[in-house]
């Protein structure tokens, strides 16, 4: 069973149906005990960083999700779900004083670094529209998540913040800057910036790959 983690911030049916549609046995749940015994965990992307992180802690989901990842249970974080894999997020940070670092909401800290706002300008000073909304291409390093997917394939993005570049980056996309559009921790914990459940056939292919990884 693949647990689709419900942290009470929005509708998860499209993620669940996306997984079911490619043969996955998906279950939307907010129960840490159910998440703890799942064969795969999907952390969807709805709401804002601070809010989602706080609710996950309240419900005791943060501990079980981190533990599942540590045990090598296949994991897929989508959009905000990918952001939550990192240590901190700028979204919802509280500025306390001019000389002090802002108080930032804490993520699951599976991966190091701060999820930061996408810049409006590229290095040449060209202006870009933020949020980054629409279909953009990914360049990836080969791996089971990308099985059957072509380099340069398009996926649907909608976000204003992006993960930091770390050795965990397995795919990149460029808007104002080149940012990680997919990450991998260990062998089987993945995060994707785009929404596979909203990315038509290419997205379904990726979800099928994840379901296969869970089944393997």
């Amino acid at each position, binding site marked *: 069973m693949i647990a689709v983690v419900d942290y009470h911030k*929005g*509708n998860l049916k499209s993620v669940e149906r996306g997984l079911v549609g490619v043969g996955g046995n998906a279950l939307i749940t907010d129960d840490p005990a159910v998440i703890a015994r799942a064969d795969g965990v999907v952390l969807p992307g709805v709401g804002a960083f601070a809010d989602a992180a706080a609710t996950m802690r309240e419900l005791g989901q943060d501990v079980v999700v981190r533990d599942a990842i540590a045990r090598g249970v296949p994991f897929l974080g989508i959009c905000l779900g990918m952001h939550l894999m990192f240590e901190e997020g700028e979204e919802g940070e509280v500025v306390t004083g001019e000389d002090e670092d802002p108080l930032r909401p804490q993520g699951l800290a599976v991966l190091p670094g701060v999820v930061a706002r996408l810049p409006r300008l590229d290095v040449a000073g060209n*202006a870009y*529209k*933020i949020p980054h909304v629409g*279909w953009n291409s990914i360049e990836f390093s080969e791996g089971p998540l990308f099985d059957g997917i072509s380099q340069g394939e398009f996926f*649907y993005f*909608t*976000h204003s913040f992006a993960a930091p570049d770390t050795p965990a980056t397995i795919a990149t996309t460029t808007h104002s800057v080149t940012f990680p559009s997919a990450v991998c921790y260990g062998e089987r914990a993945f995060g994707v910036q785009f929404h596979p459940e909203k990315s*038509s056939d290419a997205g379904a292919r990726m979800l099928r790959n994840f379901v296969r990884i869970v089944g393997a």
Partner: protein
Amino acid sequence: MLTKRVIPCMDVKDGRVVKGVNFVNLRDAGDPIELAQRYDEQKADEVIFLDITATSDDRATTIELASRASEELHLPYCVGGGFRTVADMRRMIAAGADKVSVNSAAIANPELLTLAAAAFGTQAVVCAIDAKAVAGNPNKWEVYVAGGRKATGIDAVEWAVEAARRGAGEILLTSMDRDGSRDGFDCHLTRTIARAVDIPVIASGGVGSIEHFAEGVLEGEADAVLAASVFHFGELTVREVKEYMRAQGIPVRL
């Protein structure tokens, strides 16, 4: 590279797709979900359901539609029409809509955009603007509400800037002068607003031929182009449109 989007828009009444010609004559074009799935196959980048009955309190049919769409569609969709409060929008988001679009209610209460952005994120909040050229001034457009029937006296460019500042994540810009005309987008209006705001602008109103889609991007500088009847009645497929756009050098997903 971020591609330019092609968005079929469905006017929905009582759960069925209709297309208003100048917002008056309605023709039935079928089941919104089936139509959206057909557009998905044709490589539509997203779809918009515009609830044209939504001035009434009873939105149950549309919420049902949004809910069905979240289960059966694998592309993003926006629902618009008749939202008055954040609670109205929350019901639609909870049903599965990726985005909600607000028009008249945001004019009446601009704070609504701020509240909605705080509740759902800016990426989920689309501000729809119906604009009409002001006679005698080629660089001025006025905002209309109530399905284009009521003038507000508000400058469309100023309103777009304010809407973006208040938390709208996208502007859905309809030219009242062009809507239903088949003369093409008002590219001057679209370009003026696209340059004034730093959020994406969806051009709407006036598509009658395949060339108009490319003009909306190349001359109007729109991030996305929207059309309805040319798609619903099979005059053009989304794929044909995107192939044409690509031939004009516009980045599209195919």
